[in-house]
């Protein structure tokens, strides 16, 4: 279990935040950042480790959100049960879209486009189907009991999403060290070479996509429970697909800590921009966008890249184990 200690340390540190501050503003901020980190981690497995850039993680996020919401409202299923089924449903959608796209040999931009298309198709279906509440959306009934996965305080929500992020990071760390992870990186670096060496590239990518989708769906389930309201634009809209890829790209693509770092930085940046601009509506988003462009232009490997560059400069030699993970 090499490398799990830093993850546990980070999670433990973050877990103490509610003991330090009782501000729900801070907690709400962190919950949103962690949610993005979680969905970003899902994207990171497929995009960062597997080199398959998805533009449509909303398809999985939304499926998770809708399944848990619809099961509760239409079929009276317990929220925790709905949560588990939602994750499974996301994985199924991931496996299906993966099967369709990988078996047809779609790569690069084509893969990105087809994932985007899947998310859009699902968005449109969700906006017209009666079971999802069509365009009106689905409202989960307010029922502030832990059994119903609803809490009076923000703190349990915070700990749950933090635990989910922690689990996803440990999972990522385990995958890094596993045979499956090695295959995945091999496929990313050179799919033809990997195939020549006997790696079943399609199967590896499909596996990555299924896990990736399940993680994104977990984020969707959490969103539904946290806000208790979803509609097609929220669940399957492009915003979450973009946030999901933004966090790992800013934080450091293909690294365990990338999505978390990226999500925290991106969200903080957005908030700082908002504080600086005060009353002028929208100006914060302009500044935010500008800063993001600068960050990406000067730190193409993300924050994790800067950190490893600094370490390299300090030690003069690349530390072992860093190769191939940047």
């Amino acid at each position: 279990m090499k490398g799990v200690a830093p993850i546990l340390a980070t999670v433990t540190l973050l877990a103490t935040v509610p003991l330090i501050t009782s501000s729900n503003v801070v907690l709400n901020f962190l919950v949103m950042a962690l949610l993005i980190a979680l969905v970003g981690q899902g994207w990171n497995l497929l995009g960062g480790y597997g080199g398959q850039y998805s533009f449509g993680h909303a398809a999985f996020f939304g499926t998770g959100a809708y399944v848990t919401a619809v099961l509760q409202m239409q079929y009276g299923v317990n929220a925790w049960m709905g949560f588990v089924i939602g994750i499974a449903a996301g994985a199924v959608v991931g496996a299906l879209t993966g099967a369709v796209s990988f078996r047809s040999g779609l790569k690069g931009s084509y893969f990105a486009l087809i994932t985007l298309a899947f998310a859009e198709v699902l968005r449109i279906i969700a906006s017209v189907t009666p079971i999802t509440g069509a365009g009106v959306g689905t409202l989960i009934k307010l029922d502030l009991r832990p059994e119903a996965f609803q809490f009076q305080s923000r703190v349990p929500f915070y700990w749950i999403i933090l635990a989910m992020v922690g689990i996803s990071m440990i999972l990522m760390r385990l995958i890094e060290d596993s045979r499956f992870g090695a295959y995945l990186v091999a496929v990313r670096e050179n799919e033809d070479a990997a195939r020549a060496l006997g790696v079943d590239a399609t199967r590896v990518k499909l596996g990555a996509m299924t896990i990736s989708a399940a993680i994104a769906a977990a984020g969707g389930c959490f969103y539904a429970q946290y806000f208790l309201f979803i509609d097609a634009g929220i669940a399957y809209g492009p915003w979450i697909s973009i946030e999901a890829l933004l966090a790992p790209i800013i934080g450091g693509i293909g690294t365990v800590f990338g999505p978390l770092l990226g999500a925290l930085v991106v969200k903080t940046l957005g908030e700082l921009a908002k504080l600086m601009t005060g009353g002028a509506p929208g100006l914060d988003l302009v500044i935010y966008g500008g800063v993001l462009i600068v960050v990406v232009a000067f730190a193409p490997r993300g924050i994790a890249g800067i950190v490893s560059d600094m370490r390299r400069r300090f030690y003069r030699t690349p530390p072992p184990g860093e190769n191939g993970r940047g």
Partner: protein
Amino acid sequence: MSRQSLNVSRRRFLQSTALGAAAAAGVLQAPAVLRAQGAAVKVGVLHPVSGALSYSGQQGRIGAQLAIEEINAAGGIKSMGGAKIEAVLGDAQSTPDGGNAEVEKMNGAGVAAIVGGYASGICLAASQTAARYDLPYIVDVGVVDSIVSRGLKNTFRFGPGFGVIAKTALDNLVTINDQANKAAKTVMIVHEDSAFGAGLAKLLNTQLPERGFQVLETIPHPTPTRDFNNVVLKIKAQNPDLVIPANYYNEYVLLARTMQQQRVRPKGIYSVLGGAASSYKFVKEFPEAAQYIMDCNHWFDPKNPKALALKKKIEDKGEFYTYEVYMNYSCILLLADAIERAASADRAKIIAALENSTFTGHMMPYGPTKFVNGQNQGAAPVNTQVIGNDIQVIFPAAVASAKPVFPMPPV
């Protein structure tokens, strides 16, 4: 990671930055450091002032701020020793989670109540978060009926909801059509696909056939949509007697202009809560496209001198007198009245005062104010029509300023 794939990801990333920036919603804010002088009552003013709904949100903010200025200029809350109202502005960024984050901030800043939300989705999320803190929340526009049917004690809506609006709209449509010897038989509905448009389309689809209309097709579209050519081509192909649009401002204007460009001229355009149909901005900027459009919407009472005085004031500022302005203005007055009677910034007392409100100082042609489960029973929409360069009220008769022109005269 290879250099090549790195470049690709960066380029893709840059392309998506604009969207990303629009979608991003941050949350952290340092607790408000500024102490109010004396005992000002803080009131959260929440609107989507950036993003897809920014125009409506900004209009709403104008109305709310003006009302607060006037209340303060007139001596503030008298029962609290002339306490001033202090606005805590929030930008919901046109998303429910943006609205939710702002409510958290406002609660942290110690507001006594929140007014606003505008879009139904934002109102649903924001009022629910406010309910966690027993924080009174007055919905300014949000028309979805589930906003007030969830049993939230803190949530009040002064304006009418869907059910009432749709029923009034249909009753009036039948009357108008009967007066024109049933000129219209077929209908097409064009609606935006979030809570408001889709909910309305659903209602219309069940109720129109019961009233003798045939719905030829229902076309949903997302907000924002920037091209209506295909939608209008479909309308042209089906050639309905009546087109019913239900969407927000920008899309409404685009649809009407595209219909004008492609010379699609049904017997009538009758909208229910049309985003632009009763907007002076639309009428001024595109008078030809707007001509004879009918709408059932929030509207001020044209016979109320206060409403006309406010109209002049807003227009003198160079702004348009849209419904967001006087709805928010009225909601702030409603809240101020409740605070006045509660004689306290205590949230529970304000909620109690709102529950018993019989507020009359608003601008709309409503019946007596009475809240049942948070919904004002007196709230009612008004039918308007663009005639010449002005917007006239055609229903209800008590406040009407013109007779309906239907079917539209040929050009």
